[in-house]
């Protein structure tokens, strides 16, 4: 157990799910340095003023605890230690010192209030080393939004410690056949709150988010031929974007959200095209022989990586976003497809083939070094979390095809179980 010092500080589910299989470590992303310990936060009991909805307060605290337990950077002092803290109502300073004595580096205290269907939470985060308030916040919403208030607070706490918001409001769109047909669904990043977005009862495929989370583009056979559609997940908007001949698949938004790259073509060809997200005339970008598909924009919007079989087997190519300067990226793979450009701009995750099974590979564009992660079964369709610290992908290791995400130490964690679930697309927040 050479990992023991690190694992001790990590929540129970990580211990349960992430112990490496004998002899092989399936680590997708090395996001935390070995030995890094988490910031420990004491969670003081939050008193409620009269008028507070007790159920909303309890829901909020449960969600907050669960969120922070799923991070590698910060966690709450375990309840058995927290119980040892004797609260002295007349001496807040002494109480904070007692929190420090049980291992807390920070203390989160707060108060619930509310009236009618409103819940208000006021919190302060004390730095127990300096004795100063490091952060304070007042959050308010309807009782039904209690979990969202918790996720917002958890995001901000993670932002304090890492400089990046946490994933707690992020959502993953995906394709599921659990209703009997392949439809577009959306769920929270941890697999909870799955919601069906289409009821086409035909075939819906390849969801893609606008970066602001307001729009979702996808392919549907709703009208017979596959066509490219766009919808607003919060409702009220659904229309076709491309009805060109061909497969109309693999939509991917430009980083500014204005353009959508996709794949289609007539007479058996498939090329990369772009179309304004607001609707308009599609424009063809590539003129390759045979199949070009799966475009993905670079985070700065200047380049597009895509799959082309122009050279025989499917390989990754990159071009300028005007369609010029096409060059091949992968040379070591028998097969390379489903490229996803990391938010940092310097890594590309993709699907490769190893001994006739799909595996996730990560190409570092600075070094040209490619890392293939070998997991059980076939593993494909990698997709980055919006902050680039996690990957989602699809594995058939359980016998059905399910979506996995990487946990705080980069190992896979299954987040879907119902039916087959494929083609994850991750966005920071749905508007």
């Amino acid at each position: 157990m050479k990992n023991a010092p690190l694992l001790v500080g990590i929540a129970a589910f990580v211990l349960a799910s992430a112990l490496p299989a004998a002899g092989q470590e399936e680590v997708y992303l090395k996001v935390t340095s070995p030995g890094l310990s988490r910031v420990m936060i004491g969670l003081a009991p939050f008193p409620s003023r009269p008028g507070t909805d007790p159920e909303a307060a309890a829901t909020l605290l449960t969600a907050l605890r669960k969120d922070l337990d799923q991070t590698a950077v910060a966690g709450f002092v375990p309840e058995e230690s927290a119980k040892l803290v004797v609260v002295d109502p007349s001496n807040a300073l002494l109480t904070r010192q007692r929190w420090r004595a049980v291992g807390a580096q920070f203390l989160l205290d707060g108060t619930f209030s509310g009236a009618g269907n409103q819940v208000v939470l006021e919190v302060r985060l004390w730095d127990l080393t300096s004795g100063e308030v490091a952060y304070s916040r007042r959050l308010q919403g309807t009782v039904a939004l209690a979990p969202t208030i918790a996720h917002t607070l958890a995001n901000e706490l993670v932002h304090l410690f890492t400089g990046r918001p946490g994933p707690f409001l992020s959502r993953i769109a995906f394709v599921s056949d659990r209703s009997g047909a392949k439809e577009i669904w959306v769920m929270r990043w941890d697999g909870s709150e799955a919601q069906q977005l289409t009821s086409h009862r035909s075939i819906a495929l390849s969801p893609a988010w606008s970066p602001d989370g307001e729009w979702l583009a996808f392919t549907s056979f709703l009208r017979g031929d596959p066509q490219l559609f766009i919808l607003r997940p919060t409702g009220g908007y659904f229309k076709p974007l491309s009805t060109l001949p061909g497969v109309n698949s693999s939509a991917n938004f430009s980083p500014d959200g204005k353009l959508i790259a996709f794949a289609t073509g007539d007479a058996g060809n498939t090329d990369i095209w772009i179309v304004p997200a607001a609707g308009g005339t599609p424009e063809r970008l590539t003129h390759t022989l045979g199949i070009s598909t799966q475009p993905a924009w670079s985070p700065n919007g200047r380049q597009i990586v895509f799959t082309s079989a122009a050279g025989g087997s499917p390989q990754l190519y990159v071009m300028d976003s005007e369609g010029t300067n096409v060059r091949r990226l992968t040379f070591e793979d028998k097969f390379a497809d489903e490229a996803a450009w990391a938010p940092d701009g310097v890594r590309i995750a993709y699907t490769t083939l190893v001994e006739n099974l799909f595996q996730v590979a990560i190409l570092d564009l600075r070094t040209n070094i490619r890392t293939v992660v070998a997991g059980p079964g076939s593993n494909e369709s990698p997709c980055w979390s919006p902050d680039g610290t996690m990957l989602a992908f699809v594995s058939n290791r359980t016998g059905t095809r399910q979506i996995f995400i990487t946990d705080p130490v980069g190992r896979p964690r299954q987040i879907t179980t119902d039916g087959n679930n494929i083609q994850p697309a991750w966005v920071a927040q749905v508007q």
Partner: protein
Amino acid sequence: MSGPLISKPLTFALCACVALGLSCTHRKAVEAPPPPTEATAEAPPAPLQPGPGTTQARPEPSVAPAEHPEGGVASTELPTDLAVLNKAMYIKDPLFDTNSAELRPDAREILAADASWLKAYSTVKILIEGHCDERNTEEYNLALGWRRANAAKAYLVSLGVSAERVATISYGEERPFATCHDESCWSQNRRVHFVITAR
């Protein structure tokens, strides 16, 4: 456009009939033709009687019997029910090699027979579905199925079938014919499938 090509393709059609193990006898009032493999004593139905408005478009039936006194093409109708017609599998599906949209020699033979049948029944319209096995990503398979469907269409057109009669679609790996996860199923799933959409 099919006019000048009538006589040769019909010869082709008859050859195809024979090649498929069918004796081309007259046949009337077809309800539900059994699959050709079982229909050793029965022919596929002949072209439709020219209906109103189709007289000029379809000269084949009057030509064929004259050229082939053995009576290879009957003057009975195809089943009116498209579902029944499609079940009869008059148009065979060619199969493909892994990751390829190239027409194999056996696929060309099948398509040549299909082309002959289509030229004999020149009001028939078809949809060619491209299908793939599960061993690529969904997106790539969608594009590969599209390529297969259009390769089959191009070959039919090169043999004289009017392009307007042939629509194409790709289902990629979404509608497999066989659902096991080994080559015995994969080889069946790498195909184009013909659906008659109008008679």
